[in-house]
């Protein structure tokens, strides 16, 4: 009977609003509403390796930048009479941490040999000038992280800016800018590093930063451009344009948030490569100059004594390896976390 429309009886009660709270079940969102950031954070937390890496990095940042507040040792203070002392932690009697050394096949107390009192102990030993290795490693890590931060900054400003402008403007501008990138990225990064290192007569941070500024951002620019090209024809951007929003405002309010996943993932891979390049340049002697230290110079110094005082190379090398590992693993984790395909 109800099949016949004529039989439908409508009463005013039928037009009363439904109870909003008791809406149809199938339209309810079961999961709590999450912002983009919250979602990423949640998924990052569920990825144990990435999360551990994240914690380790936070710790390393804290120690590198704030460690000196607790561990009061000047990384540049020399005590030549205590040169090349092995690690000694008071109360620990494990070979390698008790201040003993194997010299010409014999076990000797290096601290006693150097005439150091019982109150002298260096947790990670000293280098060839009697400088505290732990303090120097902390300092070196800070330099490495600073380089990483600067590389990130360059990636974010030049790389992202270049990519967005190129993608947004399109046409001839895009064509020209793409050629610039093409040329820049077919120059080996190493060569640019070397040229900059020679160009700046005083080697150090400046040359490394200059090199990163010249070539380090091309991948980022390429990725943001591709993404921008995709986004710019989407409805919400069209809408914003129709409403007369200015280009910079669109870029800032609409493009950037949508680009953020690409940007963050790429940053996670820029950082370790910047750290690696700094270490590499310092290792071959055209990076950070003395008395400044970086993980690269520490490894290079330590290598010379590797046969007798392996700790001088192992410790900075381990810190560098952990740093590289953590950034890489975090990068992998981030990529998974941002990848909609892997959404669970």
């Amino acid at each position, binding site marked *: 009977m109800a099949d016949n429309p004529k039989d439908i009886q409508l009463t005013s009660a039928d037009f009363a609003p439904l109870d909003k709270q008791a809406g149809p079940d199938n339209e309810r969102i079961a999961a709590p509403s999450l912002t983009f950031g919250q979602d990423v954070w949640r998924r990052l937390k569920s990825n144990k390796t990435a999360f551990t890496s994240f914690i380790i990095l936070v710790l390393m940042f804290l120690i590198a930048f704030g460690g000196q507040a607790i561990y009061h040792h000047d990384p540049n203070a020399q005590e030549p009479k205590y040169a090349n002392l092995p690690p000694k932690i008071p109360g620990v009697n494990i070979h390698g941490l008790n201040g003993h050394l194997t010299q010409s096949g014999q076990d000797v107390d290096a601290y006693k040999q150097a005439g150091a009192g019982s109150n002298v102990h260096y947790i990670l030993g000293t280098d060839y000038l009697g400088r505290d290795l732990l303090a120097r490693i902390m300092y070196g890590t800070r330099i490495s992280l600073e380089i990483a931060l600067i590389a990130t900054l360059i990636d974010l400003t030049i790389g992202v800016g270049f990519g967005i402008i190129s993608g947004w403007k399109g046409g001839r501008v895009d064509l020209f800018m793409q050629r610039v990138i093409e040329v820049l990225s077919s120059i080996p990064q190493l060569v640019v590093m070397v040229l900059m290192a*020679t160009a700046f007569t005083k080697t150090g941070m400046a040359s490394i930063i200059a090199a990163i500024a010249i070539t380090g951002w091309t991948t980022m620019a390429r990725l943001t451009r591709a993404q921008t090209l995709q986004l710019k024809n989407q409805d919400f951007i069209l809408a914003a344009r129709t409403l007369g929003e200015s280009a910079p405002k669109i870029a800032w309010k609409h493009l950037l948030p949508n680009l953020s996943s690409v940007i963050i993932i790429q940053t996670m891979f820029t950082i*370790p490569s910047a750290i690696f390049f700094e270490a590499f340049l310092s290792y071959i002697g*055209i990076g950070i100059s003395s008395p400044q230290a970086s993980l690269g110079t520490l490894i290079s110094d330590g290598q010379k004594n*590797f*046969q007798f005082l392996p700790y001088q190379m192992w410790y900075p090398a381990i810190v560098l*390896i952990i740093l590289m*590992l953590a950034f890489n*693993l975090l990068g992998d984790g981030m990529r998974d976390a941002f990848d909609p395909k892997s959404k669970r």
Partner: protein
Amino acid sequence: MRKYLLKRIFYLFLTLFIVATATFFLMKLMPGTPLQNEAKLTPSEKAAILAQYGLDKPVWLQYFIYIGGIFKGSLGLSFQFSDQAVSYLIGSRMGPSMQLGGQALVVGIIFGIILGAIGAIRKDTWADRLATILSILGIAVPSFVLAILLQYYLGLKTGWFPVAGWSGFAYTLLPTLALAASPLAETARFIRTDMVDVLSSDYIELAKAKGLSKFGIVYHHALRNSLIPMVTLIGPLAAALMTGSMVVENIFSVPGIGEQFVKSILVNDYPTIMGVTIFYSALLCLLLLLTDIVYGIIDPRIRLSGNGD
């Protein structure tokens, strides 16, 4: 295709021209001449020596001579070796570097593929984790640290390999190993990610449904599809090898270009720095071009055309 090739070759020359120009003028800004003990030389001696190196002419003329020389295969005279042309220096040092680079690439890619495939097939098992750890370590441990460790433990302590030097195949093994770590790791990572995707795709499901053996599926379907994009990795891998070779050659006393490059930087041998820079850039450009062409040939989905990206 032809139009595309011409265009790419044009860009190759443009890049090299820019690199050559930039290096030339950067080097002109630097202090340092071929003069060994300047204080003892009289002005006329200095003039004679500078003339031998063509440094007596105005800079702009030197520039044109230099650029013109490149086309003739001349890169000037080295400052550190007397009467030795940079082109000869590069030519005679190229062999060992190429051999090491080639071996490292082959070893790295083969083992990388194996490692990556194991990781993808045995996803989320201990084998996968082990493969992942190995490949991440390959990226995280700098080649110079690895080279030192290899030389000390495998060269000196066990005596299995020659410690350093360059006289025979045995001498190439440790440096190859030190260099191979990074391409191995990159390849393994790439293959694993790619194969995980491929293995969960519909046609693999179909192949499984058809009852193909696991090996057959991996070999015939998954691996082949993952190998094609692998080709694009070769350019960046080769660039990374150039970097690695600088220290690895130094540590193992290999008479290669990388080792010479470091020395030239440290002693301000500008003609050699310029020459090697141009050589490295040309090599990378050529590799990038070659991989693109190979990619276009083996992957029918990519059409090399002159327009668009």
